[in-house]
């Protein structure tokens, strides 16, 4: 088994009387990990404590097999971090900034400059790299943050809300870049977000955090399999007929506002559903298995935690 990229045991962080991280114990193998949680759940604190941007109070943590708190410089040489907020150096132009970040990681100037341009190409920045960062749009700044995080070729990248403030097209582009880091280049990614769609799209492991506790840690596939037996059916007509057929079978169902029919067929796969539809001769336009599984899991986990 590969060395876990993140390993924590009873990891605690307090702000006065508030427990920001409450005995977090986690073992995450390499991959793309989505940190999910509502605002103030402790996602960013968890990241910052791991990166030693904030001190933790008790417990132990390892990143890439190295002890956090003892081998900080060595760890940071192998990881990248794109914080949520803007963090550029005023007055610098884009390519100069990324070059500087590469040099801070120990890359010699000539290589740093070449590497900076490669990374700016990778994140899709054109001639605007020669402009001062102060004049950049939110999307450009997000790309620049990603470029500075990966310029030194890390093994693990922490991305804190990387799609914040982006339009849908920009979000799609950034997510595609992040996905390619893991899929095509083997760089592990920890993505903190409150946008379930982002995490659902690119992560293969999910960690749900609330009130400083890890509520769920599993692969996305396993989480979705827990919600097997639900589906959304899209049909062109005969909605009522289909709903009645489902109810005759004692399958709870409802018509959604978008016209789709949501049904809980309780089967391991879609075969019973398809069989029923075939019996009543209704042809579906589309069947979406386990829709919103992540969202439901997320809400359920939060609900259980509150109870």
């Amino acid at each position: 088994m590969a060395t876990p990229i993140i390993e924590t045991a009873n990891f605690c962080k307090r702000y006065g009387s508030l427990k920001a991280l409450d005995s977090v114990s986690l073992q995450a193998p390499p991959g793309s990990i989505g940190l999910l949680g509502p605002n103030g759940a402790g996602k960013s604190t968890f990241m910052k404590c791991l990166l030693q941007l904030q001190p933790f109070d008790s417990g132990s943590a390892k990143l890439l097999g190295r002890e956090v708190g003892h081998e900080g410089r060595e760890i940071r040489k192998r990881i990248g971090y794109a914080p949520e907020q803007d963090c550029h150096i005023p007055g610098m132009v884009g390519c100069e900034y990324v070059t500087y970040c590469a040099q801070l990681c120990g890359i010699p100037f000539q290589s740093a400059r070449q590497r900076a341009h490669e990374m700016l190409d990778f994140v899709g920045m054109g001639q605007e790299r020669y402009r001062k960062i102060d004049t950049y749009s939110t999307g450009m700044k997000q790309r620049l943050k990603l470029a500075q995080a990966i310029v030194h070729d890390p093994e693990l990248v922490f991305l804190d809300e990387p799609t914040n403030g982006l339009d849908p097209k920009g979000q799609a582009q950034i997510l595609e870049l992040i996905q390619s880091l893991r899929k095509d280049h083997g760089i592990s990614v920890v993505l903190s977000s409150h946008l379930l769609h982002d995490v659902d799209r690119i992560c293969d492991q999910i960690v749900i955090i609330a009130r400083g506790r890890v509520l769920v840690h599993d692969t996305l596939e396993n989480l979705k399999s827990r919600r097997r037996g639900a589906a959304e059916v899209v049909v062109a007509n005969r909605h009522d007929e289909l709903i009645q057929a489902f109810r005759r079978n004692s399958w709870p169902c409802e018509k959604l506002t978008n016209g789709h029919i949501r049904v809980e067929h309780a089967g391991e796969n879609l075969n019973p559903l398809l069989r029923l539809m075939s019996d009543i001769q209704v042809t579906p336009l589309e069947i979406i298995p386990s829709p919103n599984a992540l969202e439901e899991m997320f809400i359920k986990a939060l609900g259980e935690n509150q109870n």
Partner: protein
Amino acid sequence: MALHDTHYKHWEGRHLGIWSRRAVIAGQGLKSCLQVRWMRYIVTLCWASALLQVFLLFFLGQLLVADSIVVKWLSNLNPRLQAVGAALTGWLEQHPEISVRTSFNLLFYYFTSNLLTLTMIAIAISIPHLITRDLSSNAIIVYSSKAIGRFDYLLGKFATVVGLMVLTWLGPACAAWFTGNLLSPNWHFFWHSRLALGHTLLYLGSSMAILGILALGVSAISSRAKATTSLWVAMWLVGNALIPIAHETKPWLKHLSFSYNLEQLGLAVFQIQNDFRAAEQNIPFFGDMIRTIREQSRSTFDAPNLNGALLGLGAMMIISIVIIVRKVKPE
């Protein structure tokens, strides 16, 4: 198909050591400071001052050359100045080791003291470029997430402010010493003036370290550039304003001024009272001039308050370090 040209490549080169990363921070800080037009003017002014110093040292050396323009020019002056010139020339010829040492020491004390003012202005301009802007722009988070520690970051920033002082203070002084000796008629000038160089290095080295720490402390105190610059200027000016008040009221108040403390340090290092005494004995004109200096000023030269100055500077440095430790954090 990918939306972008996703040619990500892994990097397999050799990483540079921690000292080069610290140097990168220092270099970037210095570059950022020198982008300010006024900073470039001040640096130019400091080097112009060094040029003037070189000219004076050249003038001094030419007194030993019988047919030099300087000697001819002196012979055309009024009898009083001719006598001073002749006395100085005689002293240089008879006791070169004492005369060169004394004149270099006095000149270097004078110029380094004057360059302190320009250096203080240069630091005032550089203050926002040290830590202040990194705090306001959150760049401190980026530094903290790279393969450098807080100490490395601070060392880099300290090197920035020291580098700046090398440009405005130490550099011009050392260049003046070297060029002045190079233009002297005798290679022995290098040897005879070694003490002046030693004093300069000791005084400037310690002052630069002290000012560097104080500048970092002030720079870290706020994330607003105007606030930190104003604080530095206020500390400097209010400190200077306290000196005459302290004479009338409580003498320890003087030590709240870091420029006063540095001045005392300079007097203790250069020991110019010995130079005055030597000059007083050997050059009649100088003797007359020094005798006219008020008794109070002479006591300042004779007995600089080194202990008080070190105590004052030490307290300021401790406060500065406490501020740095408390303020320079990612969040």
